[in-house]
């Protein structure tokens, strides 16, 4: 029974689900729920980015661009043009996916630093457009966004909802929605990884030329995973816009792209639990550093540097390896 659970490829999803649904029992402050919901949303984004960076081994230093595009598409469609939010999210995902495909084809031929340069450029251009087209986007001051609603049923952090006979305040309802979204994001990602597509991606990571030699259409798979990860970012960007009710172009900027890719690498590439942990750590760190006031930036940079120097594989794999050594048994499976 235990052995079957250990061997089950989705076992960590169950662990994750338990964590996600137990955590709210330990919190009572709306501020914590707000933070936790943001973490869940960003974690789901990073799970998508991990497909590109962790599995296919391609760098993107501009992913926040897609996140911002999704957020702004939803914001403008629902707030300015009164579209229903769900429709806006879906259309935004389709549009962003298409843009990622068109841009990705020529870009993904590039390698290493040229690829990071090109993705960085794409992200920057998107952020500059969002900043400058202020008639549409409100410019650097940002714009407000209507709450999420489904067939007239509105989900707002300030609302009060009854579910299964319980009274649930809006901030907890939002947390639960974001939690379910993260679980869906993880299950979809794991299914992609376990499919032939996942094998193709890993072969590209190993050696692109070898992959091509044995007949893997590397161009096709690279642009496929680029589009998939952009759609992840777009959907979660839309969700984030409806959740916070107010967005600024900063969410599409270079700094935010760096935050996203750092979450992937810091937590542990190619491990869904790892990148989620990365999102949690990176999002919580400023909360703990806030007490250091003016030293906050310096300490943040130092921790980032030191972690990557001493744990180049990231937190999660390093911790897991230490744990395995302690338990004195070797397990070859991916955690």
């Amino acid at each position, binding site marked *: 029974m235990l052995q079957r659970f250990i061997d089950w490829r989705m076992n960590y999803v169950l662990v994750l689900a338990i964590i996600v649904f137990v955590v709210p029992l330990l919190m009572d402050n709306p501020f914590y729920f707000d933070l936790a919901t943001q973490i869940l949303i960003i974690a789901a984004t990073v799970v998508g980015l991990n497909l590109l960076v962790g599995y296919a081994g391609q760098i993107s230093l501009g992913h926040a661009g897609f996140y911002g595009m999704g957020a702004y598409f939803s914001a403008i469609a629902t707030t300015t043009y009164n579209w229903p939010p769900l429709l806006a999210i879906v259309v935004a995902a389709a549009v962003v996916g298409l843009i990622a495909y068109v841009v990705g084809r020529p870009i993904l031929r590039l390698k290493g630093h040229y690829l990071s340069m090109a993705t960085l450029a794409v992200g920057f251009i998107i952020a500059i457009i969002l900043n400058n087209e202020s008639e549409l986007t409100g410019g650097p001051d940002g714009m407000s966004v209507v709450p999420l609603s489904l067939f007239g049923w509105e989900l707002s952090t300030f609302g009060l909802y009854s579910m299964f006979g319980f009274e649930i305040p809006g901030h907890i309802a939002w947390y639960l929605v974001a939690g379910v979204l993260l679980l869906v994001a993880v299950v979809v990602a794991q299914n992609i990884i376990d499919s032939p597509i996942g094998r193709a991606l890993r072969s590209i990571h190993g050696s692109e030329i070898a992959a091509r030699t044995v007949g893997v259409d590397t161009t096709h798979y690279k642009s496929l995973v680029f589009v998939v990860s952009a759609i992840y970012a777009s959907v979660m960007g839309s969700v984030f816009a409806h959740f916070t009710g107010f967005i600024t172009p900063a969410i599409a900027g270079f700094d935010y792209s760096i935050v996203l890719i750092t979450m992937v690498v810091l937590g542990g590439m190619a491990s869904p639990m790892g990148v989620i942990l990365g999102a949690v750590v990176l999002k919580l760190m400023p909360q703990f550093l806030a007490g250091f006031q003016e030293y906050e930036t310096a300490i943040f940079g130092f921790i980032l*540097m030191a972690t990557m120097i001493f744990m180049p594989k990231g937190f999660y794999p390093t911790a897991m390896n230490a744990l395995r050594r302690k338990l004195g048994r070797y397990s070859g499976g991916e955690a």
Partner: protein
Amino acid sequence: MFSEFLQFLFTGITIGATYALVALGFTIIYNASHVINFAQGEFLMIGGMATVSFMGMGIPMFFAIILAVLLACLVGVALQRLAIAPAKNADVVTLIIITIGASIFIRGIAQVVWGKDYHVVPPFTGNEPIRLGGAVLNSQSLWVIGIGAVLVVALIVFFTRTLIGRAILGTSMNKLAAQLVGIKTQMVLMLAFGLSALLGSVAGVTVAPITFTSYDIGILLALKGFVAAAMGGLGSGLGAVVGGLLLGIVESMTAGYISSEYKDAVAFSMILLVLFFMPRGLFGGRTVERV
């Protein structure tokens, strides 16, 4: 009409010379260690800010600049010793994040030491603008272009005529072979970071009288320098200089004739166009990939 064009050209060449020096800094480090150093822009910041603070202590400008450049070189060498060297087997992404972490760290320290205000470095020689064909040329611009040109020539001499320069070139071509003929590659790497910091800080202090300086100017300058280096072809010195000047001129023309809001977008659109058609930049090296 023509004077307007000339004016934009002067501005473009001035800022382009700065980009070229940043790009050369990228190139030197990239050649020696295959690292893209995202903290490159912080050297410019240190150059300008430290000069301001040394001058505030009553040190004459010339010596203040020298001290500032030395400080930047020290930071560059420390960066290599303490952050890059211990992570030598890390992935490209990991190295990128380490240098980004370093740049955030340096920026954080600068913010504590120098505050968040803009600082002014006085022009090297007077304020009188020079009139040329109806356009106005700032005398500080001549300093930027002149010092840039001198540094480029000095670098060429350094890399082709001196033993140390050739040792760096040798290490960049084949590290193992360089070690076999007795080159201390660890020293070479430190030297490359120091040299790159020197270029950055000199560029930072010469351009500071025109653009002002503050603790956070480094990021955008580093990214523009990276664009210039990639446009010319990573690892090519000529490419870095051409890329920098080209970028500066096109940017200034866009700001003048099209839209100053989209000035920054130009750099990034240009690099995309170049990479679409020439995946290794304008002067990029071989396209053979070793398996």
